[in-house]
């Protein structure tokens, strides 16, 4: 990963609080263009809140966010709408529109932003996005309630990729998947990000995903990002949570698995 890549997301001094409960205090974070940044942290450290803040679903009480150099907070609405086409978001449960088929779900953002596209082209785009997200060819006309958990996530990913975004937010993509499906999803994330040149902001609890996919990892603890770096850099940190996380029994197992079977880096 080139350390001199331009910054895709620049977060400065973000403070989020719900009533008395402070989630983030003066949080800083940079996401570089083209990297896959994993975000980890204990439950309740505000990983999802951070994502919601970046994509504008949650108004922080203080701080600045720039995406591709454009301010997210306090910018003019026109510009923010323009920014919205440049990212895709996959929510934890997929958040598919339950009354639309998978193909129609994928077409929603396309129709919203590019009403001039013809129905044939929309169908063709939906068709190859379905395959690109690793769904079977017959998944297009199915409704979300007919899909398994893993397929819902893939359909959510297909919808997130509908506008060919430069920036992809994934909220716990492998949570609730069996190890085989999770590994397949990791490979998919990595391949797509390399082929499409995506910048990925990936929230996860899954140590295997961190090892297999992420270029860098940001650790959320004590209301801040306490460390950002590759896993080996993080291992050198003496922060107690990081040590407990990566050197706990599960952390050691995951890194042993990676050591014995090195991941192919594109």
């Amino acid at each position, binding site marked *: 990963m080139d350390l001199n890549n331009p910054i895709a997301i620049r977060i400065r001094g973000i403070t989020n609080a719900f009533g008395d409960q402070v989630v983030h205090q003066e949080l800083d974070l940079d996401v570089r263009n083209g990297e896959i940044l994993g975000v980890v942290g204990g439950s309740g450290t505000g990983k999802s809140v951070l994502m919601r803040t970046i994509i504008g679903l949650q108004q922080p009480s203080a701080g600045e966010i720039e995406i591709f150099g454009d301010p997210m907070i306090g910018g003019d609405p026109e510009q923010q709408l323009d920014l919205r*086409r440049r990212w895709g978001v996959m929510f934890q449960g997929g958040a598919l529109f339950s009354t639309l*088929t998978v193909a129609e779900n994928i077409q929603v953002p396309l129709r919203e932003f590019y009403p001039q596209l013809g129905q044939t082209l929309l*169908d063709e785009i939906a068709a*190859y996005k379905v395959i*690109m997200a690793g769904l079977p*060819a017959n998944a297009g*006309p199915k409704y979300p309630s007919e899909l398994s958990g893993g397929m819902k996530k893939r359909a959510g990913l297909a919808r997130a990729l509908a506008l*060919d975004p430069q920036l992809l937010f994934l909220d716990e993509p492998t949570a609730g998947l069996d190890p085989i499906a999770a590994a397949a999803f990791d490979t998919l994330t990595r391949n797509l990000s390399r082929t*499409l040149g995506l910048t990925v902001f990936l929230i996860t609890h899954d140590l295997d995903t961190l090892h297999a996919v992420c270029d860098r990892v940001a650790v959320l603890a004590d209301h801040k990002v306490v460390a950002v770096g590759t896993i080996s850099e993080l291992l050198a940190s003496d922060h107690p949570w990081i040590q407990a996380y990566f050197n706990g029994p599960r952390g050691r197992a995951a890194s042993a698995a990676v050591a014995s079977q090195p991941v192919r880096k594109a």
Partner: protein
Amino acid sequence: MTDMADFIIEQTGPEAQLRFTGRLTLSGLGVLPDRLDALHAPVHEVNLSGVERMDTVGAWIIQRFVERTGAKVVGASEDAVRLMSLVHATERDVRVRPEPAPAVVRVVSEIGEATLLAWQTLLGLIAFFGSVLIATWDLIRSPRRIRIDAVVHRFELVGVKALGIIGLMSFLIGIVIAQQGAVQLEQFGAEVLTVNLIGRITTRELGVLMTAIMVAGRSGSAFAAQIGTMKLTEEIDAMRTIGVSPIEALVLPRMLAAIIMMPLLGFYATLISIIGGGIFCWVSLEIPPITFVQRLQEVIPITDLWVGLLKAPVFGAIIAMTGCFQGMQVSGNAEEVGLKTTAAVVQAIFLVIVLDAFFAVFFTQIGWI
């Protein structure tokens, strides 16, 4: 901002070359796909060297064009080649929407489905009624399992919270009956019979019927939506696995609340209607309240009250049962909750009115006229 996507045709001898320029991306496409589709001249080469950026949609459009015309791609950047092979690799027969059936088949299958659904709903309702009876019997045998808190909470939601709106509705209905009745009876010089009209029609019919309609709209819909949402979020399944019967925990408290609250609300509604009518009589027909009450006592037989109060718990049971039954039928998505809630209210009101007609005939037959 960079240029929109565009193309020009260059004729070099017999060979035509299509040169693309600008951004072949979703935001840069504009009307390019339509123009490409309209192009029918033979093209031998597609030159991508002038393309600034490309995304999967751009790659797909080139791929589609190349496939249609059999042209060669030249001057493609590394990224472009990669993207085109990505969309090419995925090119398979992917269905986007269900196959549309022929109109005749569709009509027949819709009729069939509706018939099946009606039949299944009827059977389901009977089965549901059966399981409610079984649960009731179980509860009677071990009365300590009755969820007093839940029942009392339902009393409040179904009964107490409805007092305001049912009172207002009944008061207005009382006035309307009195006013309309007075206008008609005046023609025969029999305004004084307005009291008979108000007293008998509200006690016997309207008090309970209008209350039932209001309770169906307020509580029947709430039952269906609550239970339907719990079904969607798998709360009902969770209950079953813990060993709690959803019928006992969810349906019976609601049934009990509706059965007990309906007669009370119906009586209250009747009373308020009579007060509304009485006020109209006092103000417009100059019948003083004392005379009004005396006359009521003379003209309303006690059986009228029994007619109203006997119907009320049956209506309550029907409203609660259709609401809970439809709630239990929810499966799949959020739209179902809405559909089933509507069905619950419509069926409840329909059944209440049908039963009311039966009751009317029945009570007349047994001589409670």
